[in-house]
């Protein structure tokens, strides 16, 4: 197990370097950001040249990348154009998005798996069909539609919740954005667990457990659910990274100053330190979440062992 973890951690290094390099190239390909700093006015050549020199933009791409990576290993992620260090932006953005993601994941797990179990156990009945139709609707409606719709109905029309999130982003204000963010994944979790449960209800070990006379809730939670969760856990694990990076839409709708907001600003302003810095952290989150998923397999199904 320990060796497996170490091997996995070592594998992350090339993935990390490769992905940062790709992102760096992509941002670089967007073009020179300096002209946009001057708005509609012409950039003053002497000032623009100084800014380029300071930002290392007057060097070839590979030199910029090496310089950037060198900085990163010293804990310096560069500076955004408004003069703020990117680490400062991260310190303010990541906790917010992390909270939002946690809310979304919790909703996803609790509601998604519950509905999946309900649906899977009553396959073909009214409730199953209803849930299948509902999840299909949820999957096919884009996030910004549900976002604006729920914001309008709950926030503006009925006034149940604040339509936007205040700067501190306390947990209770994040519930509605969390629901919006979770909805699509929730539908997938429901469908995945439904299928898995439905398959396993006919398995021998379930029949055995029932024949042993175990109480129904014990059969479901200990035997049926545990064995059905592997595909669901895989999905939720990869979803953590996707949710954090994909919060751009939700964060915009609810005015949450998190990762999505900073990434959006960084891309609009062609600011490579911001974009690469944030994506770098997201890549690490993604890799760690994947590792966690793989380790969870062994917990769920002891037959899966890692050397």
């Amino acid at each position, binding site marked *: 197990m320990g060796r497996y973890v170490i091997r996995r951690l070592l594998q992350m290094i090339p993935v990390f370097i490769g992905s940062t390099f790709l992102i760096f190239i992509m941002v670089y390909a967007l073009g020179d950001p300096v002209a946009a700093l001057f708005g509609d006015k012409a950039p003053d050549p*002497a000032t623009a040249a*100084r*800014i380029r020199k300071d930002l290392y933009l007057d060097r070839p791409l590979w030199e910029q990348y090496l310089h950037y990576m060198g900085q990163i290993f010293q804990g310096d992620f560069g500076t955004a154009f408004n003069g703020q260090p990117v680490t400062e932006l991260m310190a303010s953005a990541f906790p917010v998005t992390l909270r939002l993601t946690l809310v979304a994941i919790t909703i996803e797990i609790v509601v998604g798996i519950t509905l999946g179990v309900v649906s899977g156990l009553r396959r073909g009945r009214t409730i199953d069909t209803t849930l299948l139709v509902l999840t299909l609707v949820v999957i096919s409606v884009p996030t910004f539609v549900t976002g604006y719709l729920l914001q309008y109905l709950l926030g503006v029309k009925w006034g149940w919740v604040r339509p936007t999130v205040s700067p501190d982003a306390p947990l209770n204000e994040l519930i509605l954005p969390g629901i919006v963010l979770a909805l699509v994944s929730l539908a997938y979790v429901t469908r995945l667990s439904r299928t898995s449960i439905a398959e396993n209800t006919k398995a021998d070990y379930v029949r055995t457990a029932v024949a042993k006379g175990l109480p129904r809730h014990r059969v479901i939670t200990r035997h049926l659910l545990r064995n059905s969760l592997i595909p669901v856990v895989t999905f939720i694990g990869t979803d953590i990274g996707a949710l954090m990076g994909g919060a751009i839409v939700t964060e915009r709708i609810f005015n949450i100053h998190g990762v999505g907001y900073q990434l959006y600003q960084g891309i609009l302003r062609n600011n490579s330190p911001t974009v690469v810095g944030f994506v770098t952290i997201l890549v690490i989150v993604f890799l760690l979440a994947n590792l966690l998923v793989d380790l969870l397999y062994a917990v769920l199904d002891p037959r899966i062992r890692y050397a």
Partner: protein
Amino acid sequence: MRGATHARWAAAAVAVALAATACGGGSDSGGEAGIVSSSWGDPQNPLEPANTNEVQGGKVLDMLFRGLVRYDPATGEAQNMLAERIETQDSQNFTVTLKDGWTFSNGEPVTAQSFVDAWNYGADVRNKQNNAPFFSDIAGYDDVHPSSGDPTATAMKGLVVKDAKTFTVALDKKFSTWPDTLGYQAFSPLPKAFFTDHAAWLDKPVGNGPYTVDSYTKGTGMKLRRWDGYPGEDKAVNDGVDLKVYTDNNTAYTDLISGNLDLVDDIPAQQLKNVKNDLGDRYINQPALIIQTLTFPLYDPQWSKPGMEKVRRGISMAINRDEITRQIFRETRTPAKDWTSPALGEKGGFNPALCGDACTYDPAAAKQLIQEGGGLPGGKVTLTSNVDTGSHRDWMDAVCNSINNALGEGPVCTVNPVGTFADFRNQQSSYKLTGPFRSGWQADYPLIQNFLQPLYYTGASSNYGKFSDPQFDKLVDEANQEADPAQAIAKFQDAEKILAAQMPSIPLWYQNGSAGYAERLSDVALNQFSVPVYNRIKVS
């Protein structure tokens, strides 16, 4: 029925959670008593007077600083603020005398030195200030801001402090309306703290305006409070302003409608159809000093060869400005009839007859003119703009449709959308575009000079189409030397008539400032720069 029980539990949990959030907020409308809460965008650059060149940062500087001259928020007329008088004999050497009794909010007096230091700082290339070119008229600018290499001086020789209240300015050539340019925020004075502890100053700027910064969290918001010791006459009538950064102006609008925000100074295009319903007469839509044009790449011979001026005029006549401004912009844009802005006023040089027929939709004449001029280069035309903001994609499609319909030769007009503003600016400023491209211009000061010289004078800084006409240059030079303002404006208009004949850029529409506010506010108005005049807003 265990499954159904589960579902019921889940539904109940969500309902409880939603109810809990309802207690958290939504009940109180707007902000604290006496405080205006207003939408804000994250300023692009650090907040320094000589480094701020966009509306969001300018909004703050307008509350924090007062300069020598201030533009009347209603008329745009330049009026002395800190300046007792600005005198000149020859339109080239100026003596500035300051009024008594002005201080920064930290108690430091505003002296001649505060201005000279600030201007020298702004001009010095080592400080990388975006607005440095605003000081380029002052003698000695090249010493502190050489086009390459290191500066040979730290101060411009054209600026001399005589005593605490007086300094002189020598320009490198005559510029009669120069004092009127001093209302621009780059010319604000700076306290000593700015130079001694720059980082701390940027975290919490100190100025001499009617407000002070109470707290500033970058990327989130700024709380400004009324400065009771403010010596000026335009004291704030409210207790303060809370600027809140919004990631999206739609969200800001939602907050305004649901009572969480008092003032939005940019109504999102999608909401324009509801705005009158939602806000009634709490919706402001008034001209600002902004014009949108389509500039031709005259550096490309296919657009500049003789006879092409007919084609350029023809394209202008093929654009149905009335319909586009009504349908797409819902009258937040006004069809352009000259190259300036109605916000200047006719006294200031705006002339709605100047473009004449060339800015009037006339498909038959357009078709004829384009044929006479030899047709579109290669039989087609491509419009370019960034499409990340401002409904640019929509109006470009509409303009192309209008041109295609007028010419009746099939889809000869196409759109080249550029993803980000930065990318578009790169292509534009490196002269890579081969068809007409959008150029927006927001004036820095309400002068006709600012709408013409930087854009169309030979070699001027923002002359992206590389238009060049000796007669135009001569008229602008003469206008700048003219001591009588009315004469100067007449000369500028003569120069503008050359634009009407040559059509180096097609005036599309004037952009209005739009804002909406909550019931508890009154006396809300926008100035010519489409920034709310915060110090006059009353909160009930």
